[in-house]
């Protein structure tokens, strides 16, 4: 008798457990409770804010300390590795680099606070020169409108902004421009020298 009661009890336990498991499983799949399996759509919107940003990524030129050779009337220094009629100056092989770091194309203008005589001096034994040259540091970065063209030195004037690029690209690998500088220094140049080069980027 006791044995049969035990079997009966166990049977009930197993049956109840099975029923519970069945209920939980059916509920999970939404069959028992009436929960419907439905599809729905959602929409993700993304807007990218436009940003205009300009940067001098190479911003220093260091010719070091030197002097004009005594037997000559001027020395010439540039940022393409040339030191002529000068002693001890370092050969600088890297000019300034401007990068379009935003996500829009820009027009690029450049201006200088001084021209050659204002920068180096007036009334000297020879006329000093102060020149710049623009070129694509990365191919195709600049659609040329500069009157001097890319790749040739022109004298720096102070009569306002010079339009260098009508379309300075922002895409990476095509967004940097090289600015080389060249100066000639007469032997009798004296005084402290200073000049500001200003780059203006305007969103297109």
């Amino acid at each position, binding site marked *: 008798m006791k044995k049969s009661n035990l079997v009966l009890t166990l049977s009930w336990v197993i049956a109840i457990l099975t029923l519970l498991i069945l209920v939980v499983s059916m509920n999970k799949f939404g069959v028992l409770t009436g929960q419907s399996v439905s599809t729905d759509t959602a929409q993700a919107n993304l807007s990218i804010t436009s940003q205009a940003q300009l940067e001098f990524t190479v911003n220093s030129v260091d010719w070091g300390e030197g002097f004009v050779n005594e037997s000559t009337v001027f020395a010439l220094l540039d940022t393409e590795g040339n030191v002529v009629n000068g002693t001890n100056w370092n050969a600088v092989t890297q000019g300034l680099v401007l990068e379009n770091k935003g996500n829009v194309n820009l027009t690029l203008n450049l201006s200088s606070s001084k021209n050659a005589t204002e920068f180096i001096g007036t009334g000297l034994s020879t006329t000093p020169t102060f020149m710049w040259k623009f070129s694509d540091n*990365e191919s195709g970065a600049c659609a040329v409108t500069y009157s001097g063209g890319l790749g040739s030195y022109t004298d720096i004037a102070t009569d306002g902004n010079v339009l260098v690029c009508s379309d300075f690209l922002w895409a990476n*690998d*095509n967004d940097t421009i090289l600015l080389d500088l060249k100066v000639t220094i007469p032997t009798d140049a004296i005084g402290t020298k200073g000049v500001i080069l200003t780059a203006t980027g305007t969103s297109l």
Partner: protein
Amino acid sequence: MNKRVVISLFCLFVSILLISEITALGIIPARISINFEPGLEKTIEFTVSGASKVTRTLEVVISGELAEYITVDKSNFNLQEDMRFIVTIKLPDELKPGRNTAYIGVSEEIDMELVGGMFGTAIVINSLFAVDVPYPGKYLESTLTAENVNIGEPVLFMLGVKSQGADDVVMKPVIEIYSEHDELMETLEFKEREILSQEKIDLQKALDTNDYTSGRYYAVAKVNYEGSVSDARTDFRIGELVVNVLGYTNKTEIGGMKKFVIKIESGWNDVIDGAYAEVTISNSTDNIVSFKTSPTNINPWQIKSIEGYFNSDLFSEGEYDVDIIVNYFGRDKGRTVGHKGKILFYMPDSINYLLIIIVIGSVLFLMFFLIILGIIFKNGKKKR
């Protein structure tokens, strides 16, 4: 040597060394474009980006034909306090047809008292604010863009058309493809469609480049509408896996280890891996030295320099032959390109002069010393 020259040049060196303080400046948003509404009032918040917060007061600058309708909540601000400013726009009841613009920008305030002795760089950055006023009748403006690709890859053209007229328009665009020699290669056609007044539509079309050679091309979009044409142009390049040698070291002093630089250009629209050169310098009979440059990756269309070193003491003055082979890889394909030229070896003048001066000076000093010694010895003998 003129001391004044030395001092002045030292000052020049210092000023050049101090070139460029702030080097970056940005503004968000970069452009805002709206359709005209008479008497419209609108406020826009701008944020300055990219600048260092350590120093610098910035000045807000408004310019352009719409400048008189724009006010700003502050004309200058210090980045340590806030990187934002707000402009308020109040449009008049009428503006001229077409695009009317203003430029809202920031520039660094340069204190000339502080920078009187400095050689510096400065940035001015301008955002574009544009108001489009419809022209009477029908008028379209278009823009065209495309990316560079490699041979066999499609060029995707994006054509943007904006109706700037007061009336709706039916348009039929085409894109003409030209070689750099102005030869018409083919024409891509779009279907005819209507564009409403003040509406902007962006269209796209792909060009199959399988029958094209590598090189520079340009495309001209012509949007025909009811007797008129709006056009736009874009340039693009089709690349192939090639590296061109643009230049190399063609003269060098004799004396120790010297650097040999090769300038190379990629004609490929992907990254070229592991480009390096094998260089051999020889005379008419023998190879004198061979060396390899360090390897480098080259970005699409990039011009870059690779360098190697060799012992120049193996050479005497004169001209030698140089043979350059550039090895490179693109998408697991290996290629080489060869280039032959000349290189001149010369003795540095300054070393010779210095050596001569030292030798002559030493000989003179020795002679003087021996003479004095001889006199002293002779006098000593006489006294005895």
